[in-house]
């Protein structure tokens, strides 16, 4: 965009200043402070010993934390991948629809995304109860034995992945659909004239043009799943055992159950660094110019 209104006064920075201050104080400053705190032994908010990197050392030696981190990656990536694939299929399928039908299917798809995670996880917990849950009742109608969705260590992990995916499929669908609608019709006609069949058109024309929405939504979903504390906490509370203990649950317990804020800060900083990688990718993917 051509800047026609370059002014020499200070009005521009002045207008941005209040928003900048709010974001700086609440989003940026605390992160710096956390790095500082993570170098201390800090129980119950009392800074006692300066430890250098001992918190990080014990963090990397703790099997439980490493396992939780790996488990988080597993849950995050599987859920995001399923969500992307199903979202893609749905989007391609309903691409041809227009008007009210297309709008209402998007609306219905986004309901889990706008429903609060506390409520969503709570309701699934109610439905997945072993003895009285509706899901087992429905399975029973088909003659399938009761499944302990939340009490079995292996199944609980997949129940968690299911609920996380349930929440995000609509989002990827809407993003990809917007990308599909943005593809010029002339390109598709041209590929048809050149003799592409449906699959070839999809793979060689549509997918490359969908790069941006695909990248953005997979990054956002990865980030959102990785940082998700509420769904695992409300659905299974990390249990049974440690089978669904993700890294955010470790962080929360470290801070607000054991009051070991030095360690909690170290874990938070670790999560933050992983987020940062994702955010850099996001900024690159958005490719937006002002």
């Amino acid at each position: 965009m051509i800047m026609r209104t370059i002014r020499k006064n200070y009005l521009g920075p002045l207008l941005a200043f209040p928003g900048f201050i709010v974001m700086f104080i609440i989003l940026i400053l605390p992160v710096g402070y956390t790095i500082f705190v993570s170098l201390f032994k800090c129980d119950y908010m009392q800074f006692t010993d300066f430890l250098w990197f001992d918190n990080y050392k014990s963090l990397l030696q703790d099997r439980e934390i490493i396992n939780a981190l790996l488990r988080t990656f597993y849950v995050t990536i599987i859920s995001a991948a399923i969500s992307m694939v199903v979202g893609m299929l749905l989007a391609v399928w309903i691409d041809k629809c227009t008007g009210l039908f297309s709008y209402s299917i998007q609306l219905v798809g986004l309901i889990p995304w706008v429903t609060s995670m506390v409520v969503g996880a709570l309701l699934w917990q109610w439905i997945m109860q072993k003895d009285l849950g509706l899901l087992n009742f429905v399975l029973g109608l088909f003659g399938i034995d009761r499944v302990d969705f939340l009490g079995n260590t292996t199944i609980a992990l997949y129940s968690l992945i299911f609920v996380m995916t349930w929440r995000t499929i609509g989002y990827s669908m809407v993003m990809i659909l917007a990308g599909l609608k943005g593809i010029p019709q002339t390109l598709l006609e041209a590929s048809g004239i050149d003799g592409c069949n449906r699959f070839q058109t999809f793979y060689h024309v549509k997918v490359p043009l969908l790069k941006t929405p695909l990248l953005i939504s997979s990054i956002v979903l990865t980030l959102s799943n990785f940082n998700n504390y509420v769904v695992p906490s409300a659905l299974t509370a990390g249990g049974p055992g440690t089978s669904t203990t993700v890294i955010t649950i470790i962080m929360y317990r470290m801070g607000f159950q054991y009051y070991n804020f030095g360690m909690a800060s170290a874990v938070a900083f670790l999560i933050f660094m992983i987020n940062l990688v994702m955010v850099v990718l996001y900024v690159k993917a958005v490719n937006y110019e002002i």
Partner: protein
Amino acid sequence: MKSKIVNINVSKSLRSLGLYIIFIVMAVVNLFPILWSMLTSFKPIRDVLAYPPKIFNFMPSIEHYKEVFKNGFAHSVFISIGYSASSILIGLVLGLLFAYSIKRFNYPGRMIMFYMVLCGIPLSLGSAAMVIPNYIYFTNIGMIDKWYTLVLIYTAYNLPMAIWIIMGGIESVPIEVEESMRIDGVSRGYLIFGMVPRLCLPAMAAAALFIFIGAWNEYIASSVMVNSTNLKPIQVSIYDYLGFYGRQWGPLTASATAAVVPTLIVFTFLGKLLISGLTQGAVKE
């Protein structure tokens, strides 16, 4: 010739049948938990745990709602409305000023501001990493457990997304319109606070919607930043009922229903804005 037409019609109707099936499956999977919870919340206490589950053969009662609202749920609802409304108001004003400044002025540091917003967007879509930093920092400067704590947090978390959406709105207002208004003697203050918001009203509404959803649904920061009962927002109350009522699903589903219905109402009317906000930047125009 005729058989071909019939063929096309058959495949077309098969296709639309497939679409309807997809739509129904999606509606069931997505809406079902909410509908089931509504149904459960109206069951009398002895029917909640009935097995096989009762679908329609029960006398509806509102005893669970009565119980939940007796235990201070109404207060949480009101305080959450207050938090959301204040966050929307502050967020819209700050977001408008910030977006206008980035879009219409050129000054050193403008790109830094822009990248700050861009980095903040994915974080506002869900970041647990900010909870510990915010808690420690707010505790040390004594801003924890105050009436304004959560308003500030909600505003800051959702501000990047709001700015991003309003920036898209301002972009759609031709700069010539503003210039001609200036020539006509419209003051800059009225231009920014009066005309620009009016010209990009859909973007402002979409930003407000995002702040509302963000503020209304936030749980993790709210659960640690306030301790006083009378400052607890709605999501924290629901989560607390999980421990408080144990496995009493009647009150739990009643509170969940009461929390979800406002979002659904807002979403049904303003869904278009939500979709346009979400997909902004994903599609090249």
